[in-house]
């Protein structure tokens, strides 16, 4: 009968081997013959992940309370001459 502990190590070893093999797997990408069609697709920015969505567009007549940049300058230049 196989020792439970040995079986666990063997299982773990096989799992790690599979991870390594899969991470090195080369994928062949297909050549696209009709590229013009690709550029004609409608683009919908709402499908983008949050960190890539367009920034907020200020509406006509909307007042923004922008901070004075001099009050924000807490950073140190690394290249002052």
């Amino acid at each position, binding site marked *: 009968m196989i020792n439970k502990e040995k079986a666990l190590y063997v299982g773990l070893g096989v799992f790690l081997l599979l991870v390594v093999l899969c991470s090195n797997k*080369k994928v062949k990408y297909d050549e696209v013959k009709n590229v013009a069609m690709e550029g004609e*697709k409608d683009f919908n920015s709402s499908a983008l992940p949050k960190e890539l969505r367009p920034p907020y567009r200020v509406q006509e007549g909307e007042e923004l309370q922008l901070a004075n940049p001099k009050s924000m300058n807490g950073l140190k230049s*690394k290249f002052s001459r």
Partner: protein
Amino acid sequence: MTYKVPTRYEELTLIIKVITNSAESIRIQVIDADQPNTCYTDRSKEVSGESIFFVRMPVSGNEALVSVFNEKNGNVSSDEDDSFEVVSINKEQLEKKLDVVDLGNPLVKSFVNFATRFCYNAGTLNSGEYTSDDQKFLIKYLPTIEDGGQEQTTPARIDIDSGVIEISKRQFLDFSVPNRMAILLHEFSHVYLNDNVDDEVEADLNGLLIYLGLGYPRIEAFEVFAKTFMNAPTEQNKERFDHIKNFIDNFENYNTFLYQ
């Protein structure tokens, strides 16, 4: 020849291996498959034998179209051009140096987030005013930048007192995403990082430190500054370009802070 590569909005480096029988000028273009006017790189190199192109992409869409072609033959399918072969296209992890970026600072973090979103979408945004989520930064996306009715050669500029950035949409449409990012980080540096707000070299280097730290490609930074300086070939701009080249070369060798 063009290949469709799933990029799934990830940060990555594309590694494109090409082989030629003789010396050929091979061009690589990587564009977003979905979003118009969104290019990640457009570069060419003289290849004789085997060569590898590294395309660093800190930002990507869902899918990218990777075009590889011999400049003398144009972008035709692999059946129509046997002067070169695309051996492989692989995706690897993007190498970044975040220790130099200072992303822990909320101001830098906020601007990088705002600038990334603006640069990725600039190809489809309408002219108008755009602000960061925290309303600390404002970009005026203008059809062109003008003074007294005269179009200016600069792609962007910042108001030193208000921090408002003006961008020429006409010029930004032709820029790649990394080109746009290099320009915006330069403008940010003038007001928020520089000791001397008027010092162009100081702004170039402070901006480049963030740009390169985030993993953006060196070649795109060279390219956008060269394009901008070609429109205004002054002695000062020549000196700036020498500093930029020196800085980028040394950045890879971890000698960033040796600049005097």
